[in-house]
């Protein structure tokens, strides 16, 4: 509750965080936020996690937010503190993650003077936040902070920056409670229009070759919405594919699940997307990694698209039935309408044929890879990791590259909020700090960062944060000594000219771990994998596991950019070859 004693700006900041239910702040101090750090020092309601780089702070807040469903909070100083946060903010914007980032600013009378550690924070962050504020008057402070939380979580979530000049932090400020604050001009729709719902159910009922295409929006809508989605998909009996951001919204073990779709999605998911007659997109945004060639995307499909953000609809692909609303509500509406029409006629014969076709595609076994007893295949390492952690409530984060795609393909997500990855921006260096954020929100749970050696090195200073705060995350490095994803494209598209993609001068990751006070482990051969994983999981400390894998392995299937969904490159071990090959024209397109 708000106390009645007069508070200064810094105290107002802390009081607002408390009243917003904030448990933890990820931050780094500096001159322009010292009053706030002073207020932090004098209380014990809000925990502060000291990071090692402000980019790490934002990714931690993202991992925390994505795994708990709460808003992640960041506190950084002016100038370099704010600019270091920019990559994280952009990442959160692209992946719709709710963040409130408080930045220090020089005193109001110095703004615009090129003062020490001044930068135009609101100017710099305007295009990479959902919204931002500069507090100019003490009277606005409490309202703006509460409004920032409202905006960050409402509608399509995203990052919000509040820039706090130092004089405001010292000034006496009036306090207002969160409930009294609501921006009048921001009113996202929640319920779908009833006519659209009716039309969508008609279309779904009459479908012969339907498919569900679910995305990160279902995860954004929360576990209850994921359950509604799962129940609805099961009620229809239709096949379901998920985007990279949507994994976990529908149980991976369910027979109706076709795996991830898109550039590195499964053969069955992409073929079904291409051939379907009715597609229902739920909280997914027709990203270019999904659609491939737009003029050959699902050529025969009628498309239903549920999204809370009208700007996601008809952006890349024109749809037939747009439904603007929160999937949590819209799925309830759809299920209700679907259930009311129990006695409708269905195309049972065609649906059976559709499933038979899908099973045919599935039998190609598109994720198969050549086993090897001498050298660790990255896929094998992940299969073992899956097998040895299945019984636990495991949270996975990733860096960006081949390892990320293999993790999406080979790890099985049964529940939402257990998979944190940088999809939209593809930020190398996301995974480790994100894992720390997850661990902060889930003490005692197993949190693993599936990493590439190159990505890990982009934010590896955060191992120090992990050790300091007893956040025993596990970094599982699939070490192929290459910027593997880059190497793969160079192999397939640039004549094997491996320009600057060798990860030279790597550190000894075991010694590196030890120097931080963490545990370092290494597996060189397939026979060593199980022991390393077991030890990694058991030991109650931060672990860096250096898994030395085949440097030449590629991620398949792959839809080369510029190709339609039904022209995929399949790996050498899949049954039958993919129909795709990289044409000269395709090379230009990728």
């Amino acid at each position, binding site marked *: 509750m708000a106390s009645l004693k007069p508070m200064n700006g810094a105290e107002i900041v802390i009081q607002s965080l408390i009243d917003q239910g904030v448990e933890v702040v990820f931050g780094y101090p500096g001159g322009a936020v010292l009053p706030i750090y002073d207020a932090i020092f004098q209380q014990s309601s809000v925990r502060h996690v000291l990071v090692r780089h402000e980019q790490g702070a934002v990714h931690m807040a993202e991992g925390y937010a994505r795994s708990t469903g709460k808003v992640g909070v960041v506190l950084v100083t002016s100038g370099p503190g704010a600019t270091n946060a920019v990559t994280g903010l952009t990442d959160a914007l692209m992946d719709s993650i709710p963040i409130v980032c408080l930045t220090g600013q020089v005193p109001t009378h110095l703004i615009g003077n090129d003062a020490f550690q001044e930068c135009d924070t609101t100017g710099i962050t305007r295009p990479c936040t959902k919204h931002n504020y500069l507090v100019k008057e003490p009277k606005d402070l409490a309202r703006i902070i509460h409004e920032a939380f409202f905006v960050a979580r409402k509608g399509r979530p995203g990052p919000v920056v509040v820039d706090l000049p130092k004089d405001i932090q010292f000034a006496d400020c009036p306090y207002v409670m969160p409930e009294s604050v609501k921006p*009048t*001009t921001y009113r996202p729709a929640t319920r779908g229009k009833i006519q659209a719902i009716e039309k969508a159910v008609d279309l779904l009922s009459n479908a012969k070759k339907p498919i569900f295409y679910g995305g990160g929006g279902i995860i954004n809508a929360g576990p209850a919405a994921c359950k509604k989605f799962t129940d609805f998909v099961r009620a229809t009996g239709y096949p379901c594919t998920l985007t990279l951001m949507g994994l976990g919204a529908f149980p991976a073990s369910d027979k109706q699940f076709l795996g991830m779709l898109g550039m590195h999605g499964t053969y069955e998911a992409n073929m079904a997307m291409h051939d379907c007659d009715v597609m229902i997109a739920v909280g997914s945004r027709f990203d270019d990694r999904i659609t491939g*060639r737009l003029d050959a995307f699902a050529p025969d499909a009628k498309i239903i698209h549920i999204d809370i*953000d009208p*700007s996601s609809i008809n952006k890349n*692909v*024109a749809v037939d039935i747009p439904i603007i609303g929160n999937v949590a509500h819209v799925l309830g509406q759809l299920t209700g309408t679907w259930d009311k029409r129990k006695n409708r006629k269905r195309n049972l014969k065609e649906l059976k044929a559709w499933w038979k076709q899908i099973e045919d595609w599935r039998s190609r076994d598109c994720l198969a890879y050549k086993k090897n007893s001498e050298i660790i295949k990255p896929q094998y390492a992940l299969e073992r990791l899956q097998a040895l952690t299945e019984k636990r409530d495991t949270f996975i984060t990733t860096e960006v590259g081949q390892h990320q795609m293999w993790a999406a393909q080979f790890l099985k997500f049964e529940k939402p909020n257990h998979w944190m990855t940088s999809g939209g921006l593809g930020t190398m260096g996301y995974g480790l700090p994100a894992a720390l954020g997850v661990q902060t929100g889930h003490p005692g749970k197993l949190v693993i960062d599936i990493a590439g050696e190159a990505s890990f090195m982009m934010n590896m200073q955060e191992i120090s944060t992990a050790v300091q705060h007893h956040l025993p995350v596990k970094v599982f490095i699939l070490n192929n000594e290459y910027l593997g994803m880059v190497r793969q494209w160079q192999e397939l598209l640039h004549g094997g000219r491996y320009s600057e993609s060798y990860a030279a001068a790597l550190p000894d990751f075991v010694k590196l771990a030890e120097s931080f006070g963490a545990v370092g482990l290494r597996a060189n051969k397939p026979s060593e994998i199980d022991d390393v994983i077991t030890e990694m999981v058991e030991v109650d400390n931060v672990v860096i596991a250096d898994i030395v894998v085949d440097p030449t392995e590629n991620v398949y299937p792959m839809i080369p950019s510029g190709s339609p969904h039904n022209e995929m490159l399949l790996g050498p071990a899949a049954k039958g070859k993919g129909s795709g090959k990289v044409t000269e024209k395709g090379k230009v397109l*990728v």
Partner: protein
Amino acid sequence: MAKKVASQIKSSKSQPGSAYFMVDSDQRIEQHTMAVMVINEPGVLARVIGLFSGRGYNIESLTVASVTHDDSMSLITIVTSGTPMVIEQIRNQLERLVPVDSIKDLTQEGPYVERELAMVKVVTKAKSPERAEVLRCADIFGAKVVDTTTRSFVFAMTGNTDKVESFIDLMRELGRTEVARSGVVAIGRGT
């Protein structure tokens, strides 16, 4: 429907190396006038303009002024152009901005009236025949003389963009001109 897009978008023959599938659109380009009501706060115009430049939308004209009795809201009138899909995006992207209260696509919701104010200075030789001609033409266009010297006039005239441009073109033929324009303001007709 997906097919519809397919026919509207054709892949380009001569593409540079890229990580993306690129398309040339042969959809028609339309011009739209939008009235955007925003909270009158610092930075709001930067948000709108930044949205247009960041996403590569065109601005043909943009005006802004406070329009409510308490100065709490401003109206931004934007004339923009793009394919129908881009126009829809522009509207939806504007709607995402937190301080944007409402958007009217006047072209779509029509009918509406639009006006521009132009101030046109025309400099001619003193006592020349052009001087009389300038005045005669200005009269036809309903332009008002707001300043004069022996060698110049300043006219103020309002009209839609077409009319304003015709007037300016005409004046250019008659003397050395200097022009200031307000940009378009527009409002829906009727009740």
